[in-house]
């Protein structure tokens, strides 16, 4: 198996799934009608309801959904189960579930006056659905903040050639906002200046860096930092000197390897939170604070824009490299990790060990490349109000999801060809390998991979904190005015995020986020299924994915709770200084139970509503649901 075969396979699945399945559903079941007036044309207020052309909306929706999720999920899954199950889920999941989730969420919203999914659920299923969804959204955002925060701080701390690029990104972002909104500079000029300078600094980071081959077989390569990296290393050492190099917090993480000098069979502390790590956590918090409190045009939006360009260029060049590798550098094109990591697919259960069965955990780990609940929310709140024509919904919603699958595929291939490193370093090395096919030195390509990854994650992170603040105000603002204060909301969100970063085991955090994301997807599919039943349409194509995703993600939530208890709480509870890790694990267990209960309530209400509209219950309503068909 090589990268060219994978690229061809992805293209084939895209074409066949879209042409022969998606278009059939759109034509025969949803019956999209170009003559029907959409909310964008009906209301056309020039702000929220604005008809946009298909091509523009496709680009807009794709950008809204494609970012860090498909990248991180694919990286993690490849490490846990190998490339083969991950590729299969990406391809099969998006063909039968993913595109349909995005597409139908937008279509249902279009057919219901542009209402959001939660408003439709409130009407069709039960009034309490809306409140439960709000709780869901908050904890979902908290988990993604914790998972992303963990990654960002890890890279800022562990990759000294990266932080300068982030500082430059901040400065260029603020300059970009000023140029565009206040000085009325041309967008192209603003882009060239801000993106150009940021790219130059990214490339300057690894200049002078030397990567020496490992001294022994199977060892790690030795890295000698260039001037930029050495400054950062010096800074980290100076901060660590506060405690004489001793860690502030330490605990045992079962998902990470033990230190080389650890006695065998003894779970010694392998996570050491040093003062330098805490410094970068504070740096990240300050970044998120600015992003949450300043006007969107001043900070968050231009930084997001610059970050998009950097990631876009990296992804496009890496994709080109992946396709051409087999002709130019065949060694790069070969997948180096196992197709299947273990023959039992993770199903064997041992007491005290993490349990990662393929089902249900793969489907929670690859959260966004195959299907995502967040996309359904975004689609129903924003995209649906800009749809000009019902026949645009499929290329915009379904097409974007199919295209996002290719992003997940690229991340998977990058990790698979890296040949060294695990997780984000593997992704960056893989991107470096792909860029080396185009003549870019490998270590510069890897630095670009690291930086583009951190850039994309950090820009999402600041906005997640922003929305957490808003959700807190929305949910608790009526009970206590203090939650309406933006500074209080941001502080609460940041403190919770920091607690998760310091105490959450990253793999479990990501999987819990993935579970909540997929649970949201199954809930949005549930709303779609109930709507289909209420309008007397065939429900099979939505009902089966709903049941599959619902059962799978509920099971994944329970597995994660079990893993947290067995591998974090129990071994660390007798260890001195591991209190924060135990506390974090217990908090995550409580969150997983809360999500489980919330999803169970919505599932029960949804099932009752489905039976009501499909006429299965004696008390079936005779009045159809209030919606345009």
């Amino acid at each position: 198996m090589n990268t060219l075969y994978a690229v061809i396979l992805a293209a084939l699945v895209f074409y066949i799934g879209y042409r022969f399945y998606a278009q059939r559903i759109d034509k025969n079941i949803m019956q999209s009608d170009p003559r029907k007036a959409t909310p964008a044309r009906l209301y056309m207020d020039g702000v929220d309801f604005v008809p946009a052309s298909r091509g523009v909306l496709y680009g807009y929706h794709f950008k809204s959904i494609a970012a860090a999720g498909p990248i991180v999920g694919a990286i993690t899954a490849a490490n846990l189960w190998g490339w083969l199950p991950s590729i299969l889920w990406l391809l099969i999941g998006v063909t039968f579930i993913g595109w349909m989730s995005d597409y139908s969420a937008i279509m249902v919203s279009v057919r219901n006056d542009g209402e959001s999914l939660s408003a439709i659920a409130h009407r069709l299923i039960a009034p309490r659905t809306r409140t439960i969804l709000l709780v869901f959204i908050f904890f979902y955002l908290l988990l993604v903040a914790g998972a992303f925060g963990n990654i960002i701080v890890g890279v800022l701390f562990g990759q000294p050639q990266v932080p300068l690029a982030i500082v430059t990104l901040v400065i260029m972002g603020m300059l970009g906002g000023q140029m565009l909104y206040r000085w009325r500079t041309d967008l192209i000029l603003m882009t060239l200046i801000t993106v150009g300078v940021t790219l130059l600094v990214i490339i300057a980071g690894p200049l002078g860096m030397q990567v020496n081959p490992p001294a022994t077989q199977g060892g790690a390569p030795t890295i000698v930092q260039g001037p930029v990296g050495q400054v950062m290393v010096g800074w980290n050492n100076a901060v660590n000197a506060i405690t004489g190099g001793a860690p502030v917090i330490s605990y045992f993480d079962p998902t990470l390897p033990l230190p080389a000098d650890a006695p065998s069979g003894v779970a010694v502390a392998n996570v050491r939170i040093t003062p330098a790590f805490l410094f970068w956590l504070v740096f990240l918090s300050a970044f998120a604070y600015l992003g949450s409190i300043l006007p969107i045009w001043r900070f968050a939006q231009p930084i997001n824009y610059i970050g998009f360009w950097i990631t876009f260029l990296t992804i496009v060049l890496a994709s080109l490299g992946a396709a051409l590798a087999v002709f130019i550098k065949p060694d790069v094109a070969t997948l180096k990790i196992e197709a299947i990591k273990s023959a039992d697919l993770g199903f064997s259960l041992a007491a005290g060990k993490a349990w990662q069965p393929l089902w249900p955990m793969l489907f929670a780990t690859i959260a966004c490349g195959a299907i995502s609940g967040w996309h359904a929310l975004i689609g129903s709140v924003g995209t649906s109000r800009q749809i000009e024509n019902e026949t645009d919904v499929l290329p915009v919603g379904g097409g974007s999801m199919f295209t996002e699958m290719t992003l997940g595929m690229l991340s998977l291939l990058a990790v698979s060809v890296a040949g060294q490193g695990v997780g984000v370093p593997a992704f960056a090395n893989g991107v470096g390998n792909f860029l080396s096919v185009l003549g870019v030195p490998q270590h510069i390509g890897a630095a670009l991979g690291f930086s583009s990854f951190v850039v994309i994650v950090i820009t999402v992170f600041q906005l997640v904190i922003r929305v957490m603040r808003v959700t807190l105000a929305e949910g608790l603002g009526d009970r206590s005015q203090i939650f309406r204060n933006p500074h209080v909301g941001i502080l609460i969100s940041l403190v919770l995020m920091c607690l998760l970063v310091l105490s959450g085991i990253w793999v479990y955090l990501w999987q819990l986020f993935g579970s909540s994301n997929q649970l949201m997807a199954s809930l949005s599919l549930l709303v779609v299924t109930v709507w289909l039943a209420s309008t007397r349409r065939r429900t099979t194509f939505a009902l089966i994915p709903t049941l599959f995703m619902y059962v799978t993600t509920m099971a994944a939530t329970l597995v994660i709770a079990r893993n947290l208890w067995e591998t974090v709480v129990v071994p660390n509870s007798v260890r001195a200084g591991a209190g924060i890790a135990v506390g974090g694990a217990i908090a995550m267990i409580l969150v997983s139970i809360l999500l489980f209960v919330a999803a169970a309530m919505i599932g029960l209400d949804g099932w009752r509503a489905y039976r009501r509209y499909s006429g299965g219950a004696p008390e079936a309503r005779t009045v159809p649901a209030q919606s345009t068909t």
Partner: protein
Amino acid sequence: MTSPRSAIKTRSGLLARLSGLAMSVKSFVYGMTAYEFERHALAERARLEDLFVLITLGDIIGVPILPPYYSLRLLPFAVPRLAAWKRRLLRERHVLENEEYDLIEL
């Protein structure tokens, strides 16, 4: 043998297709890049307009601020936009609509 007329038709058909493809790519790139700035600029202007109309004609939704004399002077200019304004102000909003939801890429 292909006649000159059909050759011209084929070439112009191909050119039209290529031109259409170029247009689609242009729209796609615009949608990914500049479109969010256009939307944000429109939203900012709309917020200011909403505030202005609320102050001048707020008694329509039960918020009397200005004396009716001034409201009546401005009424002829505001009438074309009143329906859209009322709908925008009074529409129930999802929690995600309050911030730039489309920038959160997950």
